[in-house]
């Protein structure tokens, strides 16, 4: 569930298809995920999950997997 919500946000903000996103999709691999769009991603994630990331986290949350893990999506998936 968390993963799906993250993918939906990323697809919307970055202008890509959800099917093109995977755990390793990142600021390095996606051309549209630049430094400005990264902040759009962070702001959208914060709003969706009613949370706030500090500067260190913002610098680290540069891949689908990192964002999902941070939000607990990794544990959620492992429980299934």
């Amino acid at each position, binding site marked *: 569930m968390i993963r799906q919500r993250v993918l939906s946000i990323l697809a919307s903000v970055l*202008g890509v298809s959800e099917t093109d996103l995977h755990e390793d999709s990142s600021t390095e691999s996606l*051309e*549209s995920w*630049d*430094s*400005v*769009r990264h*902040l*759009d991603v*962070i*702001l*959208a994630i*914060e*709003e969706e999950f009613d949370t706030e990331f500090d*500067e260190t986290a*913002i610098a680290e949350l540069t891949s689908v997997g990192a964002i999902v893990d941070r939000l607990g999506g990794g544990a959620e998936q492992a429980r299934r």
Partner: protein
Amino acid sequence: MTQLPTVGVAAGAELSFHHVGFAVASIDESRNFFEMSGYVCSSAVLDKDQGVYLACCRSSEKPIIELVQPATTASPCSRFLDVNGPGPYHICYACSNIEESLTALTQSALRYKCITSEPRRSVLFTGASFVFLRVPKVGLVELLEVSREPEPTRVR
């Protein structure tokens, strides 16, 4: 100075309009339009940190326009051009103290993120420092810390 936002702005944190950043693929090929419409445009200067070339267009009757040309394809400005084509890229407000202005914006409950953690030195507006903010539903906003009132636009 015009205040933005209008609620809860501390003394010294007021913002006043300074310029519009206008993304172009080529300053050399775009400057003619602005010069024909009454602007005097400076030479392009390279901002290595941002990966862009910048030129300042001034007019006695019009707001300042900063032409922004990507110097590398890695620049977010390059991506902006790919998606949107040339056009308004950011809006810049002058302030007397960036830190105080950011505090005031935070206290006003405006959501934003700073693109850089520390202010940088402007290569175009000599002596000024700046930060870029990403503001949801608005876009890219620059705060330019000037030690005095922004210069009036020069008479051509």
